[in-house]
Each structure stands twice: as structure tokens, then as C-alpha cells.
């Protein structure tokens, strides 16, 4: 039995043990007290900026609510194509040995969207827009599967650091904190699978790819990492929180040394993993 098959069996057993009914896990209060923190203050996208410092405590908490809605929305936008891609790969020749675990993966991602969508629709009345567009193109053998899992891994590893920090943050409103906690518990398994399958597919197919393809993939994954982070800086959030010049604020927040340091710190383990396997270049500007 291969290492990946063994991992996938262990992860399936763990998923069975922690099987959740998404309709029982949360109480969903009728209303939320907006004078609470919904997102860890230090993770707020404009934290540390003059604009942030000029806000009252109550305004900062209002902003934290919209930042939470954005975080849950970007998770929905990341998980929708993930569910679609997992469903397409179920029982495919390439991944048939891991089908049992893919069923859990799919099930758990669907449940996460129930939590995220439940929060956004109940308390904000909306999900923030997805601003990503896909341009169809041709792939070499194995390239599309590799890219699919590598992108999932990048997206989930960043999200998980936020989940872990917010699950441990006692200042956070209970519903928001519980969503972060349950997401982290499931993601811990997904991350193990994500790293192993990404590596497995790369080792299997990359020998057949020409050097231009490998260079293109490295460039793409580096850009994908940056694009993933950009979604955390949403002018729609700033508009809803009543802040002026939301697009300019987004640009300033993105370029602030404090937020660059946060992105580097949160992505450090992921970047180390990708660089050690030569999957991204050295020149990424986070």
C-alpha cells in the first residue's frame, strides 16, 4: 500500500469519528450583538493603519463583523470550485484508490459552506462577490489534477492559520468562533491529504513535462498565492463599514509593511514547503 493510500485510510477513519451534523452544531442566535469582535483584531486587513486607529472601539467591532463576512465569503468562493473539482475526480482512474476519503473531503467542504453561508445570509443578508475569473486553457497530462490540488492546498493552508488563531481568540463572538473551530478541525485532515497528493502528482507527472510547463506552473502558483491573499483586502468591506475611499484604502493596506509582515508570517510554512519542492520561485512579492 502506498504512503498516500495509507494516509487516506487513516484520514477516512478520523473523518468517520468526527462526523458532524451541520444542522445541530450551531445554535444560530436570532440576532448577533454587533458590539462584539467577530474577527481577531490583529488580522483585520487595515489593522495598524491611520484609518484604523482613527476608528472608535465600536466602529472597529463593526468593521470586524464585515471582515468576518468577507472571510466566510472567500471561503465559499474557494470551496465551490473545490467541491466541483472533487466531484469530477471521484472514482476517476487517477484517484480511485482514494475515493473513500474524497467522499469525506467533499462532504466536509459542503458542510463548511453551510456554516459560512448560514452566517453571511442570516446576519449580513449577503455573500460578498467573487472577483476571480477563470480562462479556459489546455493542459499537459496530469497538469490539471496537480494544479487543482496545489491550489486547494495553498488556499486552505492560509485559511487554516486564520481559523486556528480565531478559534483560540476568547474575545470573539461565539458563533464566529465556533465556525472557525469546526473548520480548522476538518481542515487539519484536508491539509495532510493536500500536501501528500500534491507531491504525489508532481512526482508522477513532472518528469514528462517540458521545462516551459514547469516554469509556467511555478510562476502560476506564486501568482496564485498572491491573488489568494488579495481577497482578504476587499473594498466592499470598507464601504459597508462606512470608510472613505475604499479602493485607495485597499491599496494602502495591501502595501503596508505591517500587513506584508503578517502575510509572510502566515504563509511561512507553506512557502517553505513549496520552495523546498521547487514549486514556486524566490521572487514572490507578498
Amino acid at each position, binding site marked *: 500500500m502506498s504512503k498516500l493510500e495509507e494516509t487516506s485510510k487513516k484520514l477516512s477513519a478520523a473523518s468517520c469519528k468526527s462526523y458532524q451534523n451541520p444542522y445541530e452544531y450551531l445554535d444560530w442566535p436570532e440576532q448577533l450583538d454587533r458590539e462584539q469582535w467577530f474577527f481577531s483584531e490583529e488580522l483585520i486587513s487595515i489593522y495598524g493603519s491611520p484609518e484604523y486607529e482613527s476608528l472608535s472601539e465600536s466602529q472597529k467591532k463593526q468593521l470586524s463583523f464585515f471582515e468576518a463576512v468577507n472571510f466566510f465569503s472567500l471561503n465559499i468562493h474557494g470551496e465551490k470550485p473545490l467541491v466541483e473539482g472533487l466531484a469530477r475526480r471521484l472514482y476517476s482512474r487517477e484517484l480511485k484508490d482514494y475515493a473513500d476519503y474524497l467522499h469525506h473531503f467533499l462532504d466536509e467542504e459542503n458542510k463548511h459552506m453551510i456554516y459560512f453561508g448560514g452566517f453571511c445570509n442570516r446576519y449580513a443578508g449577503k455573500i460578498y*462577490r*467573487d*472577483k*476571480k*475569473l477563470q480562462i479556459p486553457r489546455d493542459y499537459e497530462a496530469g497538469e490539471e489534477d496537480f494544479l487543482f490540488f496545489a491550489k486547494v492546498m495553498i488556499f486552505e493552508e492560509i485559511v487554516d492559520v486564520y481559523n486556528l488563531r480565531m478559534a483560540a481568540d476568547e474575545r470573539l463572538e461565539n458563533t464566529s468562533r465556533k465556525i472557525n473551530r469546526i473548520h480548522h478541525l476538518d481542515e487539519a485532515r484536508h491539509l495532510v491529504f493536500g500536501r501528500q497528493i500534491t507531491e504525489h502528482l508532481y512526482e508522477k507527472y513532472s518528469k514528462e513535462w517540458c521545462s516551459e510547463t514547469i516554469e509556467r506552473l511555478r510562476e*502560476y502558483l506564486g501568482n*496564485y498565492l498572491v*491573488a489568494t491573499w488579495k481577497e482578504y483586502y476587499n*473594498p*466592499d468591506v470598507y464601504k459597508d463599514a462606512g470608510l472613505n475611499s475604499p479602493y485607495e484604502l485597499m491599496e494602502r493596506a495591501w502595501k503596508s509593511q505591517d500587513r506584508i509582515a503578517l502575510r509572510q508570517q502566515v504563509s511561512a510554512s507553506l512557502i517553505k514547503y513549496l520552495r523546498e519542492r521547487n514549486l514556486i520561485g524566490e521572487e514572490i512579492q507578498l
Partner: protein
Amino acid sequence: MKSEAEFRSELRKWIVNKNGKIKAEDLKDDTAIIEQRIISSLQLMDLILELEKLSEEALDVEQLKPGVFKNIDSICHNFYKGESNA
């Protein structure tokens, strides 16, 4: 509201700056920016935000087709809402 010439000029400047390699004089109004990989699919999100800033209007991204970003002409045609200079 910006004039169409200002809109085109700011858009051209943004593309040149984002690409980092192409010279402004080499970027024509009909240069295929996606096909020639001047702007990558992942930079489309940044382009959408830039167009929202230039046009002062939120875009309905779900309704957008990648073809609208083919070149500067098609972007102006689809996103410039003011009076045409032509």
C-alpha cells in the same frame, strides 16, 4: 466622470505597470492582453478592481465573460460609461 481618453490612458498606464516589462508604446488599443500573457488570468481580479475604481461603479462579476478583457478597445467598450470622444 473621466473622459474616454483619460479612461484609456489610466487603463494603459495600469496595464504597463502591472506587466512590468511591456513599454507603453508597444501596448496598442487592439493588443490582445490576455492571449499575449500581458495580463494573467490571476491578475484579472486586480483589473476588475481597477475598472471599478475608474468607472466608480461595482461590476457584476458573475455576468462577465473573459472576452470583455481582450484588449483596451474591448475593455473601454464594455466598461466606459461616459460620453465617447468619437
